[in-house]
Structures are given as structure tokens and as C-alpha cells.
């Protein structure tokens, strides 16, 4: 039984990409390459354009300038469906339309992989159930999503992305609403996916989650300035203090820096 025919994994990259935030001057052009095996963390204060960047990378809004490439091919030349087999996104907030169960919600992730005439097969259901299990929400599979707590919904959304099984995972604050244990569980899951060959690119608000789990960091400043690179080079107190306009105290845990806001 073949679960899914998987095409060759394709690397998402940007060339001189300037995101379009209405009413803001052009930001620094981004030349990012989000490679298999990498875990990217995007840090920045509120309103720096993190969500806009993720939506631009997911092809949901046009950039102001520059281009988005999938293996050196402009994404504009791809069919939406083919693109969404490669790149998937977990949104920051989840709107409910009509009532749907947890399993139905996760199964929606199979959409790009099925032809119009196909029904979801038992394999697709098994895939959705495995994803729900990985996110510790399988026991809720027959519940209506509207009856879940914020953290449970967040995990269902991540499970939906896992069911979609794109190569590049874009996540907008995946640790939102999650308790400490599930924050760690989700970060572990994401790094495991990266080891298995996926590329992970997420916005985070928690510096220390980023310090612990991300190997590449993109800092987005409110004025549109941006810099990126390996985590150990980016996560330095001076840069972070300027990023958040907040004095920080640095402590060392397990040989890695951890950041605590200074009092006063």
C-alpha cells in the first residue's frame, strides 16, 4: 500500500524579497534559503511583519518586490495545488466556519494530494490519525473543534499541517496557547521532522524556545531591517535588546545562552 507518492523535496527560497506591509516603507530585502533539515525561528516585536512574511512565503499574498522560488523556479509558475504539496502553513488564529470534528479538520490536510474525484481513503484517515496521535489529540477525534480549548485547537492545527505533509512547514507562533509540556512536545516534534528531512520555519515570541530548538534565526526589526544566520551568531544580547527594546540578562544553561528580561 503506497501512502503517498512524494515528489522530490523542493527548497523554498526568496530572492530580494520585500514583504508588502501597507503604509510602511520598503523593508530590507530578504535572501533566505530554507533548506531541508533546518529549523528556523523568526523573532521580532509585534508588528514587525512576521505574519506577513509567513503569508508571503506561503504564497497567500504578493510581495512588494523580489521573488519566491521553489528549487530556483518562480512559485508563480506553479499550480496552487502543486505548491501546497510542498509548502504548508499553520495560521496564528483559527476561524471556525461550520462545525467540524477534530478528525474531519485534520483530514482537510489531504486536500492537495487528492484528485477532485477521489474520496479520502483509509490510508488518508490513518495518516490523519497518526498526526493527531503525534500531537496528543487523537482521543478528541470525534469532538467538535469548536468545543476544544485554545491549546487543543492549536495542536489540531499542527496535526492538520502534519497530515498535509508538505516539505516546508511554516508555523505562525506554534507554541501559542500551549502549556509548557506541550510547547516542548511540539518543539521536539518539529525538530524530529527537520531531522527526517523537512524544513521548519516558524515565528516565535519565546526567545528561549528559539534558543533551545532553532538552528537558524531571522531577526525582524520594526523599521523593516532584518538579519539572519546561524542561531549562535544571531542570539546575542545586544541584537536582542535592540530588537525588543528591552534590557536582558543572559544566563548560561547547558552551555547555551538563556535570556531573562531585566527588572525595571
Amino acid at each position: 500500500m503506497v501512502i503517498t507518492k512524494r515528489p522530490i523535496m523542493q527548497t523554498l527560497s526568496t530572492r530580494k524579497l520585500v514583504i508588502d506591509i501597507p503604509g510602511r516603507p520598503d523593508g530590507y530585502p530578504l535572501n533566505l534559503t530554507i533548506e531541508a533539515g533546518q529549523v528556523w525561528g523568526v523573532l521580532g516585536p509585534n508588528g514587525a511583519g512576521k505574519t506577513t512574511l509567513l503569508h508571503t512565503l506561503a504564497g497567500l499574498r504578493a510581495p512588494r518586490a523580489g521573488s519566491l522560488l521553489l528549487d530556483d523556479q518562480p512559485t508563480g509558475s506553479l499550480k496552487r495545488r502543486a505548491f501546497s504539496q510542498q509548502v504548508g502553513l499553520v495560521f496564528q488564529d483559527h476561524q471556525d466556519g461550520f462545525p467540524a470534528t477534530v478528525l474531519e479538520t485534520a483530514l482537510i490536510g489531504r486536500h492537495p494530494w487528492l484528485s477532485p474525484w477521489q474520496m479520502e481513503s483509509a490510508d488518508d484517515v490513518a495518516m490523519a490519525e497518526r498526526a493527531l496521535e503525534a500531537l496528543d489529540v487523537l482521543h478528541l477525534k470525534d469532538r467538535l473543534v469548536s468545543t476544544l480549548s485554545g491549546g487543543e485547537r492549536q495542536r489540531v492545527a499542527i496535526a492538520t499541517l502534519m497530515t498535509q505533509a508538505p516539505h516546508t512547514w511554516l508555523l505562525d507562533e506554534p507554541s501559542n496557547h500551549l502549556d509548557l509540556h506541550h510547547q516542548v512536545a511540539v518543539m521536539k516534534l518539529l525538530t524530529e521532522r527537520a531531522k527526517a528531512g523537512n524544513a521548519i520555519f516558524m515565528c516565535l515570541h519565546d526567545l528561549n524556545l528559539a534558543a533551545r530548538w532553532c538552528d537558524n534565526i531571522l531577526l525582524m526589526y520594526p523599521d523593516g531591517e532584518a538579519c539572519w544566520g546561524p542561531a549562535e551568531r544571531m542570539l546575542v544580547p545586544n541584537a536582542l535588546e535592540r530588537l525588543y527594546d528591552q534590557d536582558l540578562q543572559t544566563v548560561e544553561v547547558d552551555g547555551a545562552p538563556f535570556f531573562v528580561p531585566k527588572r525595571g
Partner: protein
Amino acid sequence: MTRSLLPPLLFLALASLLAMAVSVAVGSVALSPLEVLSVFFGNAEPLQQTLVLELRLPRTLSAFATGGLLAVAGALMQVLLRNPLADPYVLGLSGGAAVGALLAMLAGLGGFLVSGSAFAGALLSTFLVFGLAHGTGSWTPSRLLLTGVVVAAGWGAVITLMLAISPARELPGMLYWLMGDVSYARTPWPGLLFLLAVCLLIVPLGRSLNVLARGPLQAAALGISVRPMEWLIYVLASLLTATAVTMAGSIGFVGLVVPHMLRLVLGNDQRLILPACALAGGTLLVLADTLARIVIAPEQLPVGVITALLGVPTFLYLLYRSR
């Protein structure tokens, strides 16, 4: 979503056949089930043969087609607007179609041109309501419903104006547009064929509709070209409404109550809900029309009165029960 689609659809198909049989049997001359059967096997008395095949059956089929068209139109609009309160009647589409049809009749046109004009009216009304409610933001439920209600009231005024200035001999034929009355339907076949065509088209579209019901951004992230898809639904829903209104005038609440009831029982998979709407909407209107024929016999009620009287309390009850 994974459950089989066939059993509920077969059940609904049986129910609609039963409803049609009842509708054909009931009337000033009541027929027994055996007599109805013998008509279809062609060995009944000529009088019964004529009564059923030429008088009652076309009307029953028209009622079925109209109900199915309205229910599917309602269900499609609800997906488009992600709002279970959307309905061709509530949103003023039926009113627009009625104005279009009346205008054509006033101008002395007939047949095909009346239908075309009704379609243009429905489309114009959809444009007005969706365009105005959209404004600079997105389709919020309250804004949309308010716009729809106000536009519907506007169409009502236009209709009254046209009735006031039209010649008296035209009035009976025009009035039915307002009340909704299946007895004026000329032929059920275009409506039935269109309903069937839409149901077939919906099979490959169904899963995309499910995804679209999760919101436009999520749908785009899952590979749907949202704009063309929304336009397609919008045009289809207008076409369905226009066809229904052209057949039987503006009948309310079928598009609201039928999808809502079915969703409570069958869940939310559009691949199941939309064909189920066609069958259940048809069944409901066949039964309502039968009731309209017998309740104050020998006089007949416009079927729109029955659907409103059935629809309003059912809807309120369902809304109340759902939380």
C-alpha cells in the same frame, strides 16, 4: 467525512419518491396507492391516467425541482459566506429575480425572456448585496444579513410599484411571483435537468467546498484558487435561484431550513449535504405543495405560505436546540 455517502442519499431518494406518490394521489379525486401504481404501469382508467400524468405529476415534479434548486442554492451560499443564515430569499435574490420577471412581463415579453430577465434580476441582486456588504472589509454575517434584508425590502417596494401600474388583467399572473405558487410552473424539465447537472458538477467540487468552508486563507493554503472558486459558487447559486424563481415565484425558507436540518443530522461534508439538499428540498416542497392544495380545498394556498409557516418555527426551534 469518511462515512459512506450512499445510505443517507438512498434514504432521502426513497422519501422523495414516497412524497411524490402521496402528492399525486391526494386531491379532489383521491386515488388509492394501487391506482397510482396502475397509472404508471399504464393500465388505469383513461380519466385517472389524464389526471395523474397531465395534471398532478407535472406540478409535483415542478415542486420537487423548485425545492431542490432552492435548497442547493441556500447550501452553496452558506458555504460561500461561511454563514448558516444565508438564503436566497433572506438575501433578497428571490426579490431581484421576481422584479426581473415582472419587468419582462410588463414589457409584454414571454417565455424564455421572462426567465432570462429573472436570472439577470437575481444576479443583479446578488451583486448589490454581496458588493455592498463587502464594502472595504470582509463579509461579516450581520452586515450581510442587514444588507440582504434592506435590499429585499427595496425589491418589495419596486414590486408593489409595478403591480400598482400594471393592467388589471395581468395581475393574477403577476401575483404568484410574490407568493410563490407551483401551479403556474409551465414545465418541470428545465429545472429538473439543471438540478441534476449541478448535483453532478458538485461531486468533483465537493471537497474543495469543504475546504473553502474553513475560510479563504486556509483554503488558499491548501491549494484552492479561492477567487475563481468563489465566483463559480456565486454564479451557480444565482442561477439556481433564478431558475427556481422563474418556475414558481419567490418561495422562502427552503434554502435556509433544509441545509440546516441536514447538517444537524448528516454533518458537514458538502459532497453529502449538497445532493441531500436537492432530494430533501424537493421532498419538502412536494409535501408543502400537497398541503397547500388540500388544506382549504377546494381553494388553494400559495405554497410560499406553507414553507414560511413550516420554516420559521422549525428554524427557530433548531436554532434554540442547537445551543
